[in-house]
């Protein structure tokens, strides 16, 4: 159990995150650019340059870091998840505690052959996003196979 989980998300997950980052930062850049006309001098330059720098950094760096840190594994006893861009968090969910598993595919995910798996326990839910569709199916089936064997209130 002490070995770090080894499986990764789909490589194309990075492109999904890049698109997400570009979208949020793009909106920020636009707002800041409009607002910069109300400012003058150094502040106006800052308002135009800073969001663009943020956009470039987050589009280039964040998805790569996040993808590199994302690891998961389904053990017979537990589901092991490690993730985080800067703050890295490792979570272990005992299989007996899994109430149900949800697989979802939005438009973008479908076009890239990806799927997101959400594992529900009585305390909340844990997500493994942007898996290859085959991996997602495997996670779902394995948990379904494991869970009833250890039925407990």
């Amino acid at each position, binding site marked *: *159990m*002490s070995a770090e989980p080894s499986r990764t998300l789909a490589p194309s997950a990075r492109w999904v995150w890049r698109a997400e980052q570009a979208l949020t930062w793009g909106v920020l850049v636009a707002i800041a650019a409009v607002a910069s006309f109300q400012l003058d001098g150094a502040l106006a330059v800052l308002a135009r340059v800073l969001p663009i720098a943020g956009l470039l950094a987050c589009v280039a760096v964040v998805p790569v870091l996040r993808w590199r840190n994302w690891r998961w594994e389904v053990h017979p006893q*537990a589901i092991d998840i490690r993730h*985080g861009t*800067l*703050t*890295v*968090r*490792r*979570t*272990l*969910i*005992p299989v007996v*505690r899994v109430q149900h598993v949800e697989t979802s595919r939005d438009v973008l995910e479908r076009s890239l052959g990806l799927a997101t798996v959400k594992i529900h*326990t*009585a*305390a*909340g839910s*844990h997500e493994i996003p942007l898996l290859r569709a085959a991996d997602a199916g495997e996670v779902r089936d394995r948990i379904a196979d494991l869970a009833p064997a250890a039925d407990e*209130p």
Partner: protein
Amino acid sequence: MSPEPRRLHRAGILVYALATLREAAIPLLAVFLVGGLGGGFDERALLRAVAFTVAGAVFAAAAGYVRWRTTTWWVSEEGIHRRSGLVSIKETDVPLGRIQSLDVEQGPLQRAFAVYSLHVQTGGGGAKGEIVLEALARADVERLRELAGARRSPVAAPGPERRLGRRGLLVAALTAGQLGVLLPVLAAAGQLGQSLFDERRGSEAVGLLPDAASEWALAAAVLLAVAWLLSMLGSVVAFAGFRVRRESDRLRIRRGLLARREATVPVVRVRAVEVVEGVLRRPLGLAALRMEVIGHADEAAPAKTLFPLLAVRDVRAFLDELLPELADDLDRLEPPPRRALRRYLVPPVVLAAVVGAPLWAFAGAGPWPLAVALAAGAGYGVLQFRAAGWRLEDGRLATRAMRVARITVLAPASRRESHSIGQTPLQRRGDLADLEVEFGKQTSARVRHLDAATAAALWERIAT
């Protein structure tokens, strides 16, 4: 108990009549206002209003009777059944083996007729039972309990019991004063003060200030007193007559002043116990006991109370007696390393600086508010650091943390829902890590800034 369908107690007619009135209250009110008071206020209008009221009462009574008449329930080999409805018929069946608990509730009306509203809980979630029998005599409730209980434990010998006495209730009510209730009130008051200040600028404002300040203080005091009174009343209503009793594998909890509630909680579903030492209670060495019960997440907070008020030194004895499965000591907790103190200090001190510095720089309030804010922030950080701790012995986990109240979570690690270890970049530099163990929707045992190796070892020990 015969398998023939039976009706509820006759008091059910009234219960249903009242329920009908409540459901129809808004449309009735509209009719009443438009029809009864439409043409001014004279004798005829008054007469009409009376006529409408009588008509409403008759309608409610008739509806209550019909609902009572068409509602039947029975117990068979398979389980408990309820059938209701005149036009569209609804039938619910709960197998005996599926029954998690039979909870009773007694509103003022039910109490007047000495009947009970019985909730058949299957643990499917939701505060209401899957079957609700609105009016049952005590004897029927007892027989149903026996039937449902017979499957698990043949003899439900009444075990140890604890009651909240009158003095306990009074102290619990006095010390319940929840800061959570006050915060929005204070924020609103602050906003009001701010807008008043903005409207009257310059010398006028300065001239008004002492006067206004005293008025604000008065208003704040009044608000505080009202909030305190409300929280006191709330506690009395919720916890009057509180009694908890252990009956083999379940806890039976009774409480409430107006509506008396009785809930049965299977011990296997209790995932964790929280010892909550509120701000007002901690100096007195008092605490409330809460529990995390799986499948009861939607219930209101009082429903999760294991005991409303208890001396902290008695907690261990209380748990040994009533809930030995989760009993543990509150002391001998391992603190985070000394070097973590800085991590606990930085956030509140920075927050204090952010709040205090503008006061000095722009509002011309002098350095004192900033100094006070910084000292308060640092003090809070130290308190948080001193509160934090953990212990894992024989599979029993105890963790403590403080936000406003100091909360100690006691639970066997095997009852967890998940557990995590987390490390921020700053913690990586300081070789520290956070540990979090989830026991339910509301209960998460989290200890911040442990030594990274210790936290990792602890994570491993919990995993196995």
